[in-house]
């Protein structure tokens, strides 16, 4: 109750300032001078004052309540030259000033990259931005990948070399909300989890809210990853074509009379390799490819109105006759569409309204000895959302929004021509939030928000307060704290090794939504220009977790609640990041200490004591994790990059004893039984891997810029272990290492025109 009172007071405070003396304001968009792309989270300030802000997700800024007078307005953004312009503000004036920043490489003849690292927004608590250049430059397995780059951040872990899934601050992938142009994406993978669906050519901004995220977002216990695709070049036609070992990419973008467009297509190109392998080997898929298409059209109707239409469509296809009289077919993919109207009501009120549609589907089918098994799994999610920002004065920034939609999840299984499972869940959802960012003093900021989440399936309404505080004792040091309550109405049935069958389920009567609290403390400093040191501590709880019970062999006739195991969990950790963004050598080193635990009644119990469930670490729990990411500009043409990762081995369950069930009546052979103690109480050997890459820039017959990329993954061919397999044909049982990627070369060629 006290929390509500505080939030209510905070929300009404801004209006008490409406009668203040006549002041001026300045607002506008910040964009790239070369292609007109708006820049998210660019810093805008009036030099010599404490007035400053950063651009929102549409690239828009507002500085209000400015005393009339002459100022120097400065704008900075990583990778761009700092911008400075003198402005003179009259009493009551609302100056509209759209600003274009010039990319650093464009006018610089020098090799050394000097960058002003004043990343206010990026250094908010729990927030990390991944530069799109980093995604393309770091060595990658076959194909540049957004999620693989996100996995390099402190607090984010990968389950294996084969998985692009994001395991953030002790949470599983389904605890991260993934938004592409404000639209939820339900299975963001290609090749069954190996890659993410996001084409690096199409992406403009990648931002991860690792924890303690603000009231603007909700619906997941852990984190939010927002991805915005490019608007398209507003100044000239341009494009790129890239050929790699696994996939090729092609993109174009350009202006039209009142706007811009962008189209990017990517397709795997494994067919020649598969055809060659089929000549000499059995069990090679007949068909195996992925294809995705990203597009966006923007209309800048007038200075205060913009419209955009964005879409994504991706599919993975596999046809694999894996044995005589047996084959598997699998199609899965996502389709999203969103249309946004961005409207500036006044210099103090900014808004955007979006209509979204998202579809996820998978259609696996097996046919063994003329016995077919087929699944049709579809999610349709249609929503409308609106967000309004109000800047009543320079002390407050109020935002509010609504997100409402209808979600349909349909699963239909048939076995041998008969329906064996059928589920159609349709749920309406509604979220509303209000938030105030209050600059209490020049050194102290408070952000308080409240979010109401509703889900019709089960008729659940949940309130989620959010609070964050930042104190800057001196200019170079930021001390931060955050608290938030988070709810989740969905759970993902998946397997770490294979995402092609992913199925989402929802809460319902008897299946409570999961909830959790997050507490985050942060300290961030810039000891020297171009350097940053960040530290964050977090502790989070997870209650009413609902996962598919792995022991259920057949769901027919079971009540919905009987499908699940209900559990609890917690996670805590420390993340450190040291960053250098200046000079020839740039990059960062991240260290994470983390602990994550889960407990489910009836699981991880001592023999004979089924009531005594114990907490256990999930497989992806890693106590220590170090990442080193370095880029070095060797010359005007050559760049080198390296990524090194060291982490504690993953948790696994060590079998302690064995026995056999000799007489189980329906079995022809004895059943092997492993006797285990604590679940996941042992550790695989430590994981470490070094990847290096070199990029050579040049020209493609004078028609455009070109880049060769030469990369070597796992340079010293460390055979990191994924898991152990047990061979019961041997006596004693033999443990076999199932290893991950060996040393792999990668080469790609890109032409920009």
């Amino acid at each position, binding site marked *: 109750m006290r929390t509500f009172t505080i939030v209510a007071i905070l929300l009404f405070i801004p209006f008490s300032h409406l009668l203040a003396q006549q002041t001026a304001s300045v607002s506008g968009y910040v964009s790239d001078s070369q292609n007109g792309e708006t820049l998210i989270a660019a810093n805008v300030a009036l030099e010599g004052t404490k007035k400053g802000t950063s651009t929102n997700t549409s690239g828009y800024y507002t500085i209000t309540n400015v005393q009339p007078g002459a100022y120097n307005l400065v704008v900075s953004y990583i990778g761009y030259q700092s911008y400075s312009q003198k402005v003179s503000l009259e009493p009551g004036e609302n100056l509209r000033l759209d600003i274009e920043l010039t990319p650093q490489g464009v006018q610089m003849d020098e090799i050394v990259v000097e960058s002003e690292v004043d990343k206010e927004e990026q250094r908010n608590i729990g927030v990390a931005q991944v530069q799109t250049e980093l995604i393309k430059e770091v060595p990658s397995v076959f194909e540049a990948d957004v999620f693989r780059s996100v996995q390099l951040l402190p607090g984010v872990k990968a389950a294996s070399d084969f998985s692009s899934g994001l395991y953030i601050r002790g949470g599983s992938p389904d605890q991260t909300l993934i938004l592409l142009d404000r639209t939820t994406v339900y299975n963001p993978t290609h090749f069954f989890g190996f890659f993410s669906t996001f084409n690096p050519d199409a992406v403009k901004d990648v931002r991860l809210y690792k924890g303690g995220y603000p009231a603007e977002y909700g619906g997941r216990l852990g984190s939010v990853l927002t991805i915005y695709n490019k608007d398209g070049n507003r100044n000239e036609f341009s494009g790129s074509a890239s050929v790699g070992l696994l996939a090729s990419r092609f993109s174009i973008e350009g202006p039209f009379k009142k706007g811009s467009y962008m189209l990017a297509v990517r397709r795997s190109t494994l067919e020649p390799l598969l055809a060659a392998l089929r000549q000499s080997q059995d069990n090679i898929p007949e068909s195996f490819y992925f294809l995705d298409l990203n597009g966006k059209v923007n209309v800048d109707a007038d200075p205060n109105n913009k419209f955009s239409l964005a879409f994504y469509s991706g599919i993975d296809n596999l046809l694999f006759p894996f044995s005589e009289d047996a084959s598997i077919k699998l199609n899965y993919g996502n389709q999203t569409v969103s249309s946004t109207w961005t409207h500036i009501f006044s210099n103090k009120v900014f808004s955007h309204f979006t209509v979204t549609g998202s579809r996820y589907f998978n259609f696996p089918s097996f046919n063994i000895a003329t*016995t077919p098994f087929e699944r049709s799994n579809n999610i349709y999610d249609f929503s409308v959302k609106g967000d309004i920002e109000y800047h009543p004065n320079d002390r407050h920034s109020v935002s509010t929004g609504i997100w409402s939609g209808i979600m349909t999840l349909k699963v239909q299984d048939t076995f041998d021509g008969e329906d064996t499972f059928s589920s159609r869940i349709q749920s309406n959802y509604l979220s509303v939030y209000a938030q105030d960012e209050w600059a209490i003093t020049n050194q102290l900021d408070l952000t308080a928000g409240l979010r109401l989440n509703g889900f019709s399936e089960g008729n659940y309404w949940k309130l989620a307060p959010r609070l964050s505080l930042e104190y800057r004792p001196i200019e170079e040091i930021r001390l931060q704290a955050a608290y938030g309550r988070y709810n989740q109405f969905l759970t993902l049935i998946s397997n770490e090794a294979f995402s092609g069958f992913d199925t989402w389920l929802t809460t319902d009567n008897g299946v409570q939504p999961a909830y959790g609290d997050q507490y985050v403390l942060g300290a961030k400093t810039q000891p020297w220009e171009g350097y940053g040191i960040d530290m964050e501590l977090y502790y989070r709880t997870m209650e009413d977790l609902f996962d598919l019970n792995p022991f259920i062999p057949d769901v027919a006739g079971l009540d919905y609640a009987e499908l699940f195991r209900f559990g609890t969990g917690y996670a805590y950790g420390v993340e450190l990041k040291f960053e250098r963004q200046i000079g020839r050598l740039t990059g960062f080193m991240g260290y994470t200490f983390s602990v994550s635990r889960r407990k489910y009644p009836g699981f991880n119990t001592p023999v004979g004591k089924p009531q005594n469930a114990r907490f256990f670490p999930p497989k992806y729990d890693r106590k220590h994790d170090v990442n080193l990411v370095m880029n070095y500009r060797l010359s005007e043409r050559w760049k080198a990059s390296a990524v090194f990762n060291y982490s504690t081995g993953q948790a696994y369950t060590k079998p302690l*004893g064995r026995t056999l069930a000799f007489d189980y009546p329906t079995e022809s052979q004895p059943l092997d039984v492993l006797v285990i103690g604590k679940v996941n109480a042992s550790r695989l050997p430590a994981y470490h891997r070094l990847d290096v890459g070199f990029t050579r820039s040049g020209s493609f017959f004078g028609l455009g810029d070109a880049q060769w990329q030469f990369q070597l993954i796992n340079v010293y061919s460390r055979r990191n272990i994924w898991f152990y397999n047990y061979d019961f044909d041997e006596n004693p049982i033999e443990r076999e290492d199932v290893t991950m990627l060996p040393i792999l070369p990668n080469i790609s060629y890109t032409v920009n025109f």
Partner: protein
Amino acid sequence: MITHLKTISIAFVCVILMGCELYPQDEFEEDYVVESYLVANRTLPQVRISKTVPVDQEYNYRDAAVNDANVEVRLMDQSGEEVEQQFQYGRQSDGVYVTNSPHKVLPQREYQLHVTFSNSDKEVLGTTFVPGDFRSENMSGDTVPYQDPEQVTINTTKSFYPGRQSFFIFTVEALEPEEEDLTPFYADQVDNDAEVNDFYSNSSGIINEENYEENEDGTLTLRLPWLAVAFYEENYIIASAIDDNMYDFYRTQDVQGGGSTLPPGELQNVIYNLEGGIGVFGSMASDTVRVFFSRNQ
């Protein structure tokens, strides 16, 4: 909350500075293993008793067998409160105990297992409720061409189990399993290192009663998937309705072999439903029909 944070703070310092292990691995402890499966309307089955062995040691049943056990099976009365009849067992061979009683297992009744040891204070206790008996009938005739569009159809009466639907396992058992009689899919498996013996008894896994259509006369109709047929010619089709103990053991042992939603490497213990030991003291009801699968022309 404060206590929780204090614990975490101590854990932080402990782990970072001293490298403490927050969740240490436990060690092997020897357990008694019992195994016995009552079948409705058949005589009392043997009880097999052994011990677990460390996973890195060679498993030799003779060494693992327990020969000093005192085994008793008890039939409980209808209320399940009082012992109605006791059956003493004697050792027949290594770890195997049998009874001379001609008693036929009664469906829909509770039995208890009581095992003590001459050289140990431990005792192993188990309870099973025997599923209701049922009858199966082959509706497709004695001979069916393999992969004929008209699949083998079996009608069964319903079994009974308190508080839940019936859980079935169907088994197709070849009478004379010869390699040359393997159906194409299984022949290919044998070509790829599998053994012919792996398939002579082919089990469906657990199938819930609700999968089947209920006929007007209360019987259930099931169509046998061709996947279940590993051998041409003479086969038994055995339908078994299993109790909770067999159900829990089978479904959890299966997950240890992988393929569920658990990540690779995460093993969970099997559910045993026994006190003082591990294994299965289970029961089932079953019925058998006979079919000849002719080669398709």
